[in-house]
């Protein structure tokens, strides 16, 4: 069994590349190579990393709701304050589900798993 807390405590690799934006200008793209499709573009690499990291819980939860598996790339960091992370990104409604099996998560918080 893998819990939501474990997945949200799992560190994922972060990298930043330079890519050409739609207007032809160069921007920075923060990527999480282990979470295909999870990227964040910004002119500033700092803001790109911010966007990527802040968006990671939502990306993971969205995949789980759609029953798409999330890779457990490496052991979770068990002392990570996941509750605070969820509050900071406006996902506190998922806090009651942190210790639920990820296979039993509801489509939205409040619904039975």
């Amino acid at each position, binding site marked *: 069994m893998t819990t939501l807390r474990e997945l949200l405590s799992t560190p994922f690799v*972060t*990298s*930043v590349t*330079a890519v050409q934006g739609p207007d032809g200008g160069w921007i920075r793209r923060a990527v999480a190579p*282990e979470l295909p499709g999870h990227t964040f573009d910004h002119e500033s690499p700092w803001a790109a990393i911010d966007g990527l990291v802040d968006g990671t819980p939502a990306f993971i939860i969205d995949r789980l709701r759609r029953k798409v598996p999330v890779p457990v*790339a490496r052991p979770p960091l068990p002392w*990570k304050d996941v509750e605070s992370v969820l509050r900071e990104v406006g996902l506190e409604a998922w806090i009651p589900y942190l210790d639920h099996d990820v296979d039993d998560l509801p489509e939205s918080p409040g619904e039975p798993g």
Partner: protein
Amino acid sequence: MVLKQEDNWMLTSTNPGTEMGELFRRFWMPALLSEEIPAPDTGPVRVTMLGENLVAFRDSDGEVGLVNEACPHRTASLYFGRNEEGGLRCVYHGWKFDRNGTCLEMPNEPTEARFKDRVRLRSYPTHEANGVIWAYMGPEEDQPEVPRFEWMELPPSHIFVGKVEVGCNYMQSLEGDIDPSHISFLHQRIDGQVDRGSSREVRAGENLRRFTVTDTAPKYFCVDTEYGFMVGTRRDAGTDHYYWRVTPWFYPAGSLIPREAGTLQTCLLRVPLDDERHHLFGVYYRPDAPLTEKERYEFQHGGNLFQATIPGTYKPTQTIENDFLRDRSEQRAGSYTGVKGIAPQDQAVTVTMGRVADRTKERLGTSDTAIIYARRSLLREAKSLAKGSPITPSRRRDSYFLRGVAMLLPRDEPFDVAALEAMDANGPWNRDVPWAQVQAVGEGASGT
């Protein structure tokens, strides 16, 4: 987007009462070298850390005390104190304190008043290992285990520990420690060779560094760990492999420099004196063999890796005042900088940013990924602690038992997982280990 001024202040201010200062105080940090207080009852020495003026002394039992410099009576300096019979005595009125700050004697007050029982001298716990005296300056209830770095457990013959004062905020130098793209320039030679300076033998065996010459725009990958984070710097190395330099970065300001199997390991620990100066504690060691006489001589006399200091001090001979002894003819002849030595080369570019760099004026690129990651991590933890939340790093003793590694890995393997065995300080460290036998193949494999 650049760093906001208030975040730059927070990042760089470690004095008492600051957010970052509180974070630093949750960790054990090197305070001084054992050689500074070589024997019981020798004279106390001044120690400045995190903006606090302290004195260190070795008492009659050989144990180390680290206490506030100001006597609690009239704030006279205990640096002038007498270190005698189990305590440090203020020369002004004879008040005497043991290494834990307990007042033992107060000879100018009536004995029956027991005033001495109500007076304490602020003191910090210390731990001594392999030539370094560590201190913990945080709240007693949050005191972690002393970190277990590999070099702390090696025979003294295997290590060299040096200390040098650097004339800038700790963060500028720390950022250099996790900025591997600069080695393709700052520490290079214009003829495309690695600048080994006077230390050709010390640095022999670093065969893979040739890829820092051929690939000057590496890719950076960062991943959180229980001690901080890991930086993987990836360069092309033939058709099947990448050349990875994997740097473990430790809270609050430490790192292990990536090295190839069998070569010298390097641990860099940076400790603020105040906001405008810091000490670099550099540890160079061979995990499974003594340093050679040549290596030790070079370290002690300022070779390419560790720098010369003014005798009797920990102040470097190459400073901003003398332009780090830059030699323009050397610069024309092949040295990229004209500055001799890796550390002075680093300082020539970090100290000259100013005592505290103004990060609001920077233009950061993708090559600054690890630097951004370090700043974000420190600011996140400092702000979290200020709000009363627990900090993320585990501070678990064994989590520091690692090595920094430079190696070839197959292109399809995640660097941190594939490098795990090589990074484990319990494993062998010689050129015969299987992971050091990997050869680059195909186009670009020669690194020329």
